[in-house]
């Protein structure tokens, strides 16, 4: 892979807060059209690593270089204060001046175009998650950073959204840094897995990671089998109500 395809590169990056390392010595890179997935237990530094990659933290250890400014971000949690009246439409326009049909298009992709004029405070967790994802992809970014993008989404929706994410990475040729707990659905689409536990415990293709002993120790034998199980090519997609469409 030539270096001009690299979107963001972390070199032994880490963050220390109040004399405690949140994450240490992470080396990874995200390239155009590739999906890199961060996995690891709670508190293993997945979100911190994503934020380091995004340049949110200023006093980091090591190096991070971002080669694009067109970034879409779905944070793990976001709370909108009551004092701020914000409709879905206003939220879509937050960081980018989009045309109306661009907004509609992105919202339809995640299946929430009917919520366009609803207040953000009235949405359910899953609906809000779909709006967050729509906002991140609407600006056609080079780099998408998705921190548990389908949390709270119903099961069929979850599968459809992961398919959508994979689809977007191919169509826009954008690189995706994905954080997920869901080994089942993610692994089929992932090009590179980084397993974190305060540091990089192992990394490589889903197959390599599944065979790794440290990974087995962290997630158990069961997870290892799950991961290997999902190394197969998909020959179909699902639309929003879960119907199967052959490719």
């Amino acid at each position, binding site marked *: 892979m030539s270096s001009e395809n690299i979107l963001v590169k972390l070199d032994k990056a880490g963050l220390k807060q109040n004399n405690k390392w949140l994450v240490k010595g992470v080396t990874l890179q995200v390239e155009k059209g590739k999906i890199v997935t961060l996995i690891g237990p709670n508190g293993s530094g997945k979100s911190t690593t994503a934020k380091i990659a*995004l*340049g*949110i933290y200023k006093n980091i250890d090591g190096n991070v270089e971002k080669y694009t400014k067109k970034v879409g*971000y779905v944070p793990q949690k976001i709370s909108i204060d009551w*004092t*701020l009246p914000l409709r879905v439409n*206003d939220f879509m326009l*937050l*960081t980018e001046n989009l045309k109306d049909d661009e907004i509609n298009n992105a919202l339809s992709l995640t299946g929430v175009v009917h919520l366009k004029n609803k207040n953000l405070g009235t949405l359910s967790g899953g609906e809000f998650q779909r709006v967050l994802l729509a906002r991140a992809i609407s600006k056609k970014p080079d780099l998408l950073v998705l921190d548990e993008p389908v949390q709270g989404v119903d099961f069929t929706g979850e599968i459809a959204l992961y398919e959508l994410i994979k689809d977007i990475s191919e169509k826009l040729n954008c690189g995706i840094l994905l954080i997920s707990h869901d080994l089942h659905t993610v692994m089929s689409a992932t090009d590179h897995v980084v397993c974190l536990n305060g540091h990089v415990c192992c990394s490589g293709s889903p197959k390599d990671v599944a065979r790794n002993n440290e990974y087995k120790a962290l997630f158990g034998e069961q997870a290892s089998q799950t991961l290997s199980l999902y190394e197969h090519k998909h020959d179909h997609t699902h639309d929003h109500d879960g119907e199967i469409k052959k490719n």
Partner: protein
Amino acid sequence: MFDDFFIRALVAGIGVAIVTGPLGCFVVWRRLSYFGDTLAHSALLGVTMAYSFQFNIAISVFLISSLIALILIKLQKRTNLPGDALLGLLAHSSLAVGLVVIGFLTFIRFDIMGLLFGDILAVNVTDLLIIWFGGGLILLVLKIIWKPLFASTVNYELAEAEGLNPDRAKAIFTILMAALIAISIKMVGLLLITGMLIIPAAMARNLSDSPFKMVLFSIIGGLLSVLIGLFSSLEFNTPSGPSIIAAALFLFILSLFRIKQSIQLKN
């Protein structure tokens, strides 16, 4: 036309209300009301400086308030004191130091009530120019930084991640706050400026479902408060600043009925 003190007061009040509307929304959204208080209290020091060195009050207040804001931002990073305690410390000590300095300046006669609560009689044509040109400039800058400032108000990390530079927008907004206090101190007085920022914005929240509407209603609320306040001040011979704030409170209470109605409709 500007010979009449009442016309001057109206023109000044309208100018101030147009600027406090949008800034007040950000004060409410970003939970900066105590921060606004701190800047306003420090304005008293600015006034004493102006009198001591025969300097323009608005410019002097702007400089001192900006300075206090910078000190505050530095201190916030270096101390373990909680934010509100730090703000209280600066707010009351700068007010106290300002009053002590006034005590030393025995050769100047101060209208302390006017400083604290506003004085329409004191508004002259120069003040009008400062309010309208300064206010226009504040709104222009606010329009320029609107996107990063608003995005970081919704979520700082999102704004930072997507390259909007929220820290710069925040610093510029702080300076705009200092500028607003400088131009409005004669109108409502330094104890009540924050009220002029918050109350119309809070009223507007009760009537709005989008940020744009909230800014618009906040401006309208501020304008109505100035009109009602000044006319009743003339009618009942009450102090101008408190009358404007009381009028704003009255409008806020009216807006609560709207909320009640919409809650009942939902049930």
